[in-house]
C-alpha cells in the first residue's frame, strides 16, 4: 500500500527508475520493495538504443522486481523469468530490455 502512495504522486516514471526505488525511507517500512504500480496511463517514447549502457545497468537491477513491474504494466512477455546467462551477447534481449526499461513511461 505504501508503495502505491508514493507512486501516485509521480506522473511518469521509467521502469528503470522504479527498479531503484523503495519506500524504506518511510516509517515502519522494512523491505519496501518492489513498489506496487498502479499505472493510470502508459505511453511509449522513442529513446536511442545504447547497448553499452543497458549492459552496464543489468547487474545493478533487481530482476525479480523488474519482472514484477513489467507484469504490472503489461510487458511480462518481453522478459524471461530469470536473467539468462550470457545476456551480454543476446542483442534481442537487450533491445527488449531497453524498451521495457526506458521507453515505457
Amino acid at each position, binding site marked *: 500500500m505504501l508503495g502505491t*502512495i*508514493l507512486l*501516485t*504522486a*509521480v506522473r*511518469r*516514471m*521509467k521502469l*528503470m*527508475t522504479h*527498479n*531503484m*526505488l*523503495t*519506500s*524504506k*525511507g*518511510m516509517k515502519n517500512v522494512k523491505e519496501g*520493495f518492489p513498489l506496487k504500480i498502479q499505472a493510470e496511463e502508459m505511453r511509449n517514447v522513442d*529513446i*536511442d538504443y*545504447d547497448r*553499452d*549502457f543497458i549492459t*552496464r*545497468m543489468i547487474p*545493478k537491477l*533487481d530482476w525479480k522486481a523488474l519482472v514484477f513491474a513489467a507484469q504490472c504494466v503489461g510487458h511480462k512477455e518481453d522478459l524471461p523469468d530469470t536473467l539468462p546467462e550470457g545476456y551480454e551477447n543476446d542483442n534481442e534481449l537487450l533491445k527488449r530490455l531497453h524498451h521495457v526499461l*526506458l521507453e515505457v513511461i
Partner: protein
Amino acid sequence: MTALSPLRQPAKRYLLWCANEHIEFRIPEINAISSMFNIPLMWIDKPKEDPYLIVEMRNEGDARRLMSRCMLVRSCFELWGQGNTEEELHSSIKLFPLDMMKPHLAPEKTFRVRVESFNKTLKNAEKLKKIESLSYLPFEGKVDLKHASTCLHLLEYYGLHPNETHRGPYKLFLGRWVVDGQRELISKFSLKSRTYIGSTSMDAQLSFIMANFAQVQPGSTIVDPFVGTGSVLVAAAQFGGHAWGWDIDYLTLHARTKPTRHSQKERTAGESILSNFEQYGLKHKYLDVVVMDNARPFWRDVPYVDAIITDPPYGIREAMERVGTVKGPKTAEDTIKQQSSSHHFPSKMNYNLSDVYCDLINFAARHLVVGGRLVFWLPVFREDYDENHIPSHPCLRIVFNCEQVLTVHASRRLITLVKTRHPQEGEVGKCQVTDLNAKFRDKFFQAASLTKEERASLKSMFPRDKRGQGLAYRLGESKNKTKVLKMEAASECSSGQHNMLLDICSKLPHLANLSLVKFTFGGRVAMDHRVYTRQFEFKLGGRTVNAAPRHFVCATLCSASVGTNSGDLSPTWPLPGKKVVPVGVRTMVVAARTKVGKGKEWKSGSYSPYITSY
C-alpha cells in the same frame, strides 16, 4: 600495450593555450581527463597563472582525445620552439628536428602562419615582419589563408597586466595547430538560450568542468540529488552520462516556479527538465527526475551510481529544506485529515547546511561504485576557510579542491571525492562535517552589513582579480604576512576618510614624502556627484599631482595593480609615484575614478576613491 608504446615512440611536446579564466580549475581538469582516458601525460611547464601550459604526450591521437573534453583549453599545438626572447625562440626552432617539420610543409601541403599576441594588439605590419622572420623554415607548399592544411601559430605572451606591456613579450612559442578544445560548447549550451532555467542554474562552462572532474564517460550513470533545473545533468549527458536527478522542490521539478528571466512573466508549457535535454538532442540520456528528500533517500541499497555531480543549496538564493515538522506530536485529527487526501504533501522544515553535506556524503559512500566520483560545491566564508572543514568520509578520498571567488568574503569550492572502497558494517554514517559550514548563511548576511571601511580592509586581504577568479594560492602565501591596517573611526564620509589617510601616513614613516594637500571625496559616499577641476590633489615626492576632470587618477604607490579600480580605464597620468615605494604595510594604493559627462562616457556616479592597505 599502452604502457609499452611510450618507449617505442618518442614523446612529443604539446603547447596548451588555455582560456584566461577559472585558472584554478585548469590543471585539475587536464589531470582528470588524462587519467580518465589513460593518457600518459608529463608536465613540462605548469605555470600558476600564465595561460600557456606545456605537456608531453605520446602522439597526436592522445592530444586529440584530451582536447575532446577540455573546456579550459582553447587550442592545442605541437610545440616547434619556445623562448623568452625572439632570439631564443628562433634558435629553439632551429633545434627542432627537421624530419618532424618537413611532412607538414611538404610541396603538396598548404600552409599559413598566424601571429597571436596575448595582452597586446599588434599592427598588421608588425605581424608580417614576425612571419617573415620565420622564412628559414623549409616551406615548400603553397600559402592558403583560408583552408590551409598546416596552420603555424606564433604566440606571444605579454603578461597578464594590461598596463605593463611596454616591454617585449615574456614568452614566445611557435606551434603547429593540432586541435581546438571544447570552448564552443559554452555558447552552444549557454543559459541564455536554455529552455528552462531557474535562479540557481549552473553556468554551462562550470557544468562541463564539473562533468570532467567527475570523469563522466559514455554509458555511465550520473545522479544529481539537488537537480533543480537540471543544468548540471545536461552537461554530464552531453559527455555521454545517463542522468537521474531528484530534488525536494516539487514546483521546480515541474517548472511551476516564478520565471527568472527578466522579460518572462509566466512559465510556458514547454519548460521542463526534459525539455532542456531535448533542446540539445540528449533525450536518450535522460532517465527520470523524482521528487525526493535527501534526508530520507528512497533508493534501493545498491551501488549503482558512477558519479554524483551536484550543487547543493547554500541557503542564500535557494532554501535548504527537508521533510519534517517542527510542530508537536500529531493529534488524531491531523492524521485523519492527511489520510483523506490522496495527494499528501508533507510539510518541510529547515535543513541544516552541515546535514545537507552529511547526507550527501553518506549517500555517496553507500551508492557510488568503487572508483566513482562525487563532485559538489561547498560555500565557504573565505576568512574562516580551513582545509579541515571539507567534509570527509573513511571511504572517500579527496582528489581536487578548487576555489571560485563569489564576493569579497565568500567563495565556493568545487570538491571532488573518489570512493576508494565499500563501507563496512556501520560505517555508512561516518561522514565528518564540521559545524562551521552551518554558519555560512549567517556570516554571509552579516558580511553584507559591514561598513565601507571594513569591506575595504577585507578586499585588500582577499584580492579578486579582474577575471573574477579566486587567487587562493596568493591568499595562502600572504596569509601570515598580511596585517590589515585597522581603519578606525572615519564614520563620516569625506572628512573622516581624509583624517584616516592622514592617520595612515603618520603611522608610516616611509610615507614621509607623501603629504596630502587636499583630498576631496566624491565617490559613493558623497552627497552630490559633481567633481570639480583639481579636486584630487596630493603631493608625491615633492611633486604636486592634480587630477584633471574626466580623468581617471591612479596613484599607485607600489607595484600592485589597483585591485579595486575598474580595469577598463588606464591611468591617464603617468605618475612618478607609479614606481615602487615600499611601504611598511606591504603596499598602499590610492585610487580614484572620476566621472564627468553623461551617457556613453562612464557609468554615472562611478567615481570612488579607495584607500587600501595590505
